[in-house]
């Protein structure tokens, strides 16, 4: 039995993961060897110290807060029928069926009878007329959302947003009175004193983008909010590099849907791909063939194995590390190939692989060479504002948010919104962001002519 195995047994004992046989073996070894007993004592002491932090008391009313947040959220129905029903719920100003507390099957009955609930029988004829009209509109919306691609013309922006006019993110109707009340509130007075917010509110296209359903919630996500309110990230998004990529439908689709954009937000990856020598090494078809092997892919996603592989490629791996490497036959064999060895021994590429464990997966994709060869992507690689933001990390954290990345890949309006300077400036105002996220009347006001009137009144009063 090796010392390493002894230590593994000790750790398994601390974790309560020994089999009966292993426990017996460990007892024997402890009886034999004083140094192992000392090691066991040390480990027990450490476990005691670590475990001295017990479970924590929850913040007050935590479960109520969570359930309130859950009730405000919108699970996206999985089927087109569900999406249509949800849109119908919204248009008719009722709580979506999947958020209501109801008996199983009740939603089906409601869908099939037009029963709107709320304590009274709705005039069926009128309801069916409204529902018929709504379905026509809804199918348009579902089609618009579900099938459009990023290369669609930007002209769809306002039209798309207008189709949502009158609908609210939570599914609970916001009345004209709610909007008016908000426009007369102190919050509204305060936020329009900020020139950035005022400029946004006077820009109808920017307003419409921000009023898109789900946009406020997306912007309020911790990682997204931290990114968008960071000046360096905002500069990068306003910059020619990012806007150029977003305007190029093929580049935008490739980068966002394959998750490559977040890789390009790692400064070390940026450096590796910007440099012609290292770029050519990564684009070598033989390297890609090695990287496509399953074991190599798995190995290079494990930060510890990446370190070992890099050391081994430089001939600096220890015996223990070589044994660990040998457990991954594909990676071990690949490192005996000259090209992969040279690749991993390159410090710039090593830094890139350490920075982004998904990079090896990306490089192995057949489309990688053409994506990196795209003129707009190359411009992004050399964009100074993008590089500065990448060094600050908030950009990569934002792009690494899976829901944000997924939306970015399929939602042209989000891409346009991120490239809109007025939106980017206005959302730097925390009170505006908070109101946008928490006050549905503000979202509704963005698509309302009442906002134009209120702004005109404020201007007139100022004069």
């Amino acid at each position: 039995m090796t010392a390493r195995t002894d230590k593994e047994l000790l750790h398994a004992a601390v974790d309560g993961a020994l089999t009966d046989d292993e426990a017996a073996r460990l007892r024997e070894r402890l009886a034999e060897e004083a140094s192992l007993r000392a090691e066991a004592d040390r480990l027990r002491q450490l476990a005691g110290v670590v475990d001295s932090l017990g479970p924590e008391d929850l913040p007050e009313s935590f479960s109520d807060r969570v359930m309130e947040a859950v009730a405000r959220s919108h699970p996206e129905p999985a089927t087109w029928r569900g999406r249509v029903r949800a849109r119908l719920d919204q248009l008719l100003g009722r709580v979506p069926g999947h958020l209501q507390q109801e008996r199983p099957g009740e939603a089906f009955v409601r869908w099939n009878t037009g029963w709107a609930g709320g304590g009274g029988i709705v005039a069926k004829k009128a309801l069916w007329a409204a529902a018929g009209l709504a379905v026509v509109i809804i199918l348009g919306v579902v089609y618009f959302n579900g099938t459009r691609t990023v290369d669609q013309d930007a002209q769809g922006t306002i039209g798309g947003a207008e189709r949502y006019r009158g609908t609210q993110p939570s599914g609970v109707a916001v009345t004209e009175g709610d909007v008016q009340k908000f426009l007369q509130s102190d919050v509204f007075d305060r936020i329009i004193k900020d020139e950035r917010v005022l400029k946004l509110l006077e820009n109808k296209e920017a307003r419409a983008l921000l009023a898109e359903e789900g946009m406020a919630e997306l912007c309020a996500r911790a990682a997204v909010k931290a990114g968008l309110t960071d000046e360096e990230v905002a500069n990068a998004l306003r910059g020619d590099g990012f806007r150029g990529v977003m305007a190029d439908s093929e580049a935008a689709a490739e980068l966002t849907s394959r998750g490559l954009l977040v890789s390009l937000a790692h400064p070390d990856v940026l450096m590796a791909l910007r440099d012609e020598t290292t770029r050519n090494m990564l684009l070598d078809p033989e390297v890609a063939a090695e990287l496509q092997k399953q074991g190599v892919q798995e190995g290079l996603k494990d930060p510890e194995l990446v370190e070992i592989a890099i050391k081994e490629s430089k001939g600096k791996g220890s015996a223990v590390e070589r044994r660990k490497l040998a457990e991954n036959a594909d990676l071990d064999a690949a490192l005996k190939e000259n090209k992969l060895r040279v690749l991993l021994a390159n410090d710039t590429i090593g830094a890139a692989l350490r920075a982004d464990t998904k990079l090896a997966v990306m490089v192995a994709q057949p489309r990688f060479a053409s994506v990196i060869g795209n003129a707009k992507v190359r411009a992004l690689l050399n964009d100074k504002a993008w590089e500065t933001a990448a060094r600050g990390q908030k950009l990569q954290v934002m792009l690494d948010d899976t829901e944000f990345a997924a939306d970015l890949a399929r939602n042209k309006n989000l891409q346009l919104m991120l490239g809109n300077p007025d939106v980017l400036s206005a959302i730097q105002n925390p009170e505006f962001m908070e109101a946008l996220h928490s006050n549905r009347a503000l979202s509704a006001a963005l698509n309302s002519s009442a906002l134009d009137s209120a702004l005109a009144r404020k201007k007139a009063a100022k004069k």
Partner: protein
Amino acid sequence: MSFEVGADDDLDCVERCLRGETAAFRPLVERYQRLLFTVALRMLGDREQAADAAQTAFVRAYLKLQTFDRGHKFFSWLYRILVNECLNLRRAAGRFEPLGATLAAREDPAAGLEQQELREAVQAALLRLPSAQREAVVLRHYGGLSYHEMAEVLHVPEKTIKSRLYSARQRLGELLLGWGERP
């Protein structure tokens, strides 16, 4: 700390939520809230952020319930969402804070510390660990997960979990008990 919860109970709640019964999510929240909050706090070191992370994890889980694979345990899936959320918040907040000079300078840092100081020292030491190691220690010691469950949550092989725990404990031993470099 560990959980002995019937997976069937969880699945029943999930099914009811998917049928539109939002209130059926509450038992899941009440069952896992303390554990999720504790894990988030150990990962992030800040109560407010931990509460945000735990709440966001629950909401995201609710929103994505239809993607939950019934072949897995609900809490493993929930943990995965929480761990991602913590990583996002942690990276958004910047790099790790340095360990307090007083503690780092002690020859045997944990010796003679009062309970509160010890708790603070352990939390600070956890924050000094690389993310992958911290996840392993937190899920094992504060989440009570087995190697197999941790591997499922973190999407890595069990041997990687063991390796990370080993490395993490070496580092914690150095930081908290003055182990020093050992082979």
